[in-house]
């Protein structure tokens, strides 16, 4: 008797899995998400059973070596790709339902690697206006949004410049402004700093951190730079289509062997501390991320 009741409960919970209800409280929520670029059953799975949730207002960095499926995952968040298996919810909306398409595209802004290939117009302000124009926003409101977005990224003074005359970092900030003009809740940035010099990188990172801090924007930053990931609230590490580590930067980077096995480096400080711990047998905490933390730990050890 008890067993059958248990079976019924189990059956019900499987028919309407808890995650689906949970999806409403999380901003982005992937449930056993699988994806393959080809339709054949034998085709390689680029995403395998990815389950992930991103809270509203958080700053999440996604790491992974080339071809691990980071961009593919990002494209799901904007309904450029649809899951082959499992499902993805954005703000409680199932991405596989056609009716949510434009709502999701407007709520999740995407910024790509090459700033040259995402600017559409010959004048900066026209480019920023592109998305709200597409959304059918009235002209006065577009003007307001353009000004607000350009001021947010600190490019208002360049509003009548031609994009091709700007530096890489400036172009990338214009691209961010172009997305902000949609008034999204979340921005997904796919290696936005990969083609920039150190100064451009700093400009872009400062901008997205400020957005996250001041406007509570949910940020998902795909990157190859460990130092960028170390500044996030949370780090997700992907390896051949699965999530192999997920936690705060300290939790993730202290698993040095795991990170290395995914073909990635750990931040230099963590690397040094790891070496001191394993090779030299020093009793240091594994989760030092910054130089200061490491220095303090070493000083404490010797005092």
């Amino acid at each position, binding site marked *: 008797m008890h067993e059958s009741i248990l079976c019924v409960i189990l059956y019900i919970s499987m028919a309407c899995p808890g995650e689906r209800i949970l999806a409403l409280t999380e901003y982005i929520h992937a449930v056993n998400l699988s994806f393959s670029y080809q339709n054949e059953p034998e085709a390689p799975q680029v995403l395998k059973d990815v389950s992930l949730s991103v809270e509203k207002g958080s700053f999440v960095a996604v790491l992974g070596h080339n071809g691990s499926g980071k961009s593919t995952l990002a494209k799901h968040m*904007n309904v*450029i790709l649809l899951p082959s298996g499992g499902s993805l919810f954005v703000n409680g909306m199932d991405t596989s339902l056609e009716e949510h398409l*434009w709502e999701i*595209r*407007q709520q999740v*802004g*995407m910024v*790509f690697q*090459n700033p*040259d*290939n*995402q*600017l*559409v*117009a*010959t*004048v900066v*302000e*026209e480019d920023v*206006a*592109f*998305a*709200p*124009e*597409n*959304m*059918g*926003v*009235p*002209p006065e409101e*577009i*003007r307001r949004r*353009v000004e607000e977005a350009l001021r947010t990224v600190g490019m208002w003074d360049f509003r009548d410049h*031609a*994009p*091709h005359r700007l530096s890489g970092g400036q172009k990338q900030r214009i*691209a961010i402004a*172009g*997305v902000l003009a*949609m008034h999204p809740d979340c921005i997904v940035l796919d290696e936005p700093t990969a083609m920039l010099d150190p100064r451009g990188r700093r400009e872009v990172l400062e901008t997205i951190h400020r957005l996250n801090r001041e406007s509570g924007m949910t940020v998902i930053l795909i990157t190859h730079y460990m130092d960028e990931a170390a500044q996030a609230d949370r780090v997700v590490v992907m390896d051949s289509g699965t999530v192999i580590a997920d936690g705060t930067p300290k939790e993730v980077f202290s698993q040095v062997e795991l990170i290395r096995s995914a073909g990635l480096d750990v931040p230099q400080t963590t690397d040094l501390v790891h070496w001191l711990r394993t090779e030299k047998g020093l009793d240091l905490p594994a989760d030092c991320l910054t130089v200061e933390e490491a220095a303090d730990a070493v000083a404490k050890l010797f005092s």
Partner: protein
Amino acid sequence: MLNDITLGQYFPGNSPLHKMDPRIKILLTVLFVVSLFLVSDPLFLIAPVIFIGILYLIARIPVRFLLKSLKPLIPILIFTTVLNLFFLPGDVTLFSFWVIQISDKGLLNAILVLIRIVCLIAGSSLLTYTTSPIALTDGIERLLSPLGKLKFPVHDLAMMMSIALRFIPTLIEETEKIMSAQKARGADMETGSLVQRAKALVPILIPLLVSAFRRAEELALAMECRCYRGGEGRTRMKQLKLHLRDLWGSLITVILCGGMIALGFLL
């Protein structure tokens, strides 16, 4: 080497001509060009010459700019002038030498055609000097928008134009990079016969094409992410509004052209 390709030939400025509505400017230019061809007496062409001169002064466009846009047409100008001058039989022969005869009609016609072509170039160049390519595209799109009702893809064409305008500088920059990369590998593009030089272009064009396709793909993706779904339901930030200057400009031009056409028909 490729730097001196300026697109269109926009000459940035702040004159009333620059600020005029592109739609009005396009329409007036068409009217002006048409009326030039309806005039058959060189005497009446003095008015448009003076008119164009004044407009260039207002727009503060240096004369050398006009000369620059006339330069490629010099052979045609000489050809038509010579043809008219020497080979058009008239009533009175003014000058004759060997097989060449200059008649009164020939002389008149030569002058007429010369002034016409110069005015034509000067007038249409004025449009491109005082209107940025993007404003020009915008003007054309809005002028043609009634055709959209007939399923003519006005928006798509305008979008294509403006994307082309946006990417031409980027692609030029890229071409330069590829050229120096190929030169560094020992490619020789400056010497040799025409065929050899054409062949040397292949290693430049292929990477350029490949990269253009990649760019196009990424751009399409970025546009989709920014909610692009064609022209339907799209609004524009910049609304074109007619100002007093557009009215004045139109009035003056219409009266001038109307007068020219009327006189052309009367005489």
